[in-house]
């Protein structure tokens, strides 16, 4: 059944927000703002930022450990994690990991923190309480997002550049296999009771469904343009996928893989979580610099559909532009390209 939603708030948080995590007891969200080098602390009741905590260079991902009250950010350009005390909102310490850490996940049962190190092609395993490094496991180029399947005693480390997933035994910390997925693999979620994992392939524009027993891709699901973020819903019946290329979130059925909804959010969405306390979706919009809070609604209170201006562009004259040249700083206008065929590639360096 199609879903309807409304945006509760879009909270300005900083430059290029990526990962986000929820602190249920304090009713907060934590957002890693990678270009601000800060952690934004959002009061979810007030829908407002209550603090910006300076962390290491280029924090990309964030997780929160409720037992210790610690917030961890993966500071990619610092090759380290910042450990922030949620009570005092100060940096307790920084822990060195591999080169360019970009993905974090917690295993609270085993009291471990997993970190994918993209340039190091490794996955670090830390003790969540002592912060000691327990292991550094070989993965593949672009190692980033990690998910844990406690049932099968597996960690899955997604490798963006290699377009693969490395399977790691969480008892021995040894790699035990791999599977190739689509190009630009960059986020992962596990549904242990189904024995399945879902991996978004940003460049291929697909979501791979992986059978964890056979360790094979059994289905390629369709989402929106340039899918980059993924979270499994609290009931494990849905997967939410952020589509960086078109500013939307695809809601995919875990059972049949169908897209049961597509939610319009801000520009360039990336990190996504569901607040288990109220079921609201929290989306970090890297382009807009906001944390968007979205709730599902029944009845007539949903947001009105937004006009798709982009689709209406085809067949029309390109609006004139006058923009500075990165190299010279001088103004360039569309008149310079008159009577030529060309491609405008809109990109962001994040």
């Amino acid at each position: 059944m199609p879903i309807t939603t409304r945006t509760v708030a879009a909270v300005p948080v900083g430059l290029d927000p990526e990962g986000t995590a929820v602190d249920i007891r304090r009713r907060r969200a934590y957002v890693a703002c990678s270009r601000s080098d800060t952690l934004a602390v959002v009061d979810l009741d007030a829908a407002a930022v209550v603090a910006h905590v300076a962390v290491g260079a280029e924090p990309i991902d964030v997780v929160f450990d409720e037992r210790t009250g610690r917030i961890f950010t993966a500071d990619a350009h610092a090759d380290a994690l910042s450990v922030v005390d949620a009570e005092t909102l100060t940096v307790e310490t920084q822990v060195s990991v591999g080169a360019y850490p970009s993905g974090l996940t917690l295993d609270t049962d085993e009291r471990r923190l997993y970190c994918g190190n993209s340039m190091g092609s490794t996955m670090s395993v830390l003790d969540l309480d002592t912060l000691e490094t327990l292991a550094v496991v070989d993965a593949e180029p672009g190692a980033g997002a990690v998910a844990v399947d406690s049932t099968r005693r597996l960690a899955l480390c997604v490798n963006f550049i290699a377009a693969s997933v490395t399977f790691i035994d969480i008892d021995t910390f040894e790699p035990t296999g791999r599977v190739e997925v689509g190009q630009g693999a960059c986020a992962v979620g596990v549904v242990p009771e189904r024995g399945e994992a879902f991996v978004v392939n940003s460049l291929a524009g697909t979501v791979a469904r992986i059978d964890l027993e056979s360790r094979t891709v059994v289905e390629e699901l369709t989402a929106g343009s340039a899918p980059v973020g993924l979270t499994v819903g609290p009931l494990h019946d849905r997967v939410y996928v952020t589509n960086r290329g078109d500013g939307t979130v695809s809601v995919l059925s875990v059972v049949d893989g169908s897209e049961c909804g597509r939610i319009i959010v801000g520009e360039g969405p990336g990190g996504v979580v569901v607040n288990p306390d109220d079921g609201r979706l929290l989306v970090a919009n890297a382009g807009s610099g906001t944390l968007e809070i979205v709730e599902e609604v029944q009845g007539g209170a949903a947001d009105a559909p937004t006009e798709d201006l982009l689709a209406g562009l085809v067949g029309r004259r390109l609006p004139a532009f006058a923009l500075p040249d990165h190299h010279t700083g001088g103004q360039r206008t569309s008149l310079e390209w008159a009577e030529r065929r060309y491609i405008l590639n809109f990109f962001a360096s994040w």
Partner: protein
Amino acid sequence: MLISVWEGSEARPEVERFREMWGIGATILLDESGDYARELGIRGVPTNVLVDADGVVRDVGLVRLDELHAAVDRLTAGR
């Protein structure tokens, strides 16, 4: 040509780092506020916009390479 969007007010060093990393030789323009992208209805990146010799938009989106190649073939075939 490339247009960098949503980089904030300190776009140039970030764009330069990106250009060097990927060895980009093409012209790069800066739409720091994203206003021009917004005028076109662009809500995400990457987004490609193909323009013909009359200045008319022939295709948009085209994230996957196969999609882009097919659209360029269509554009060049329409000379």
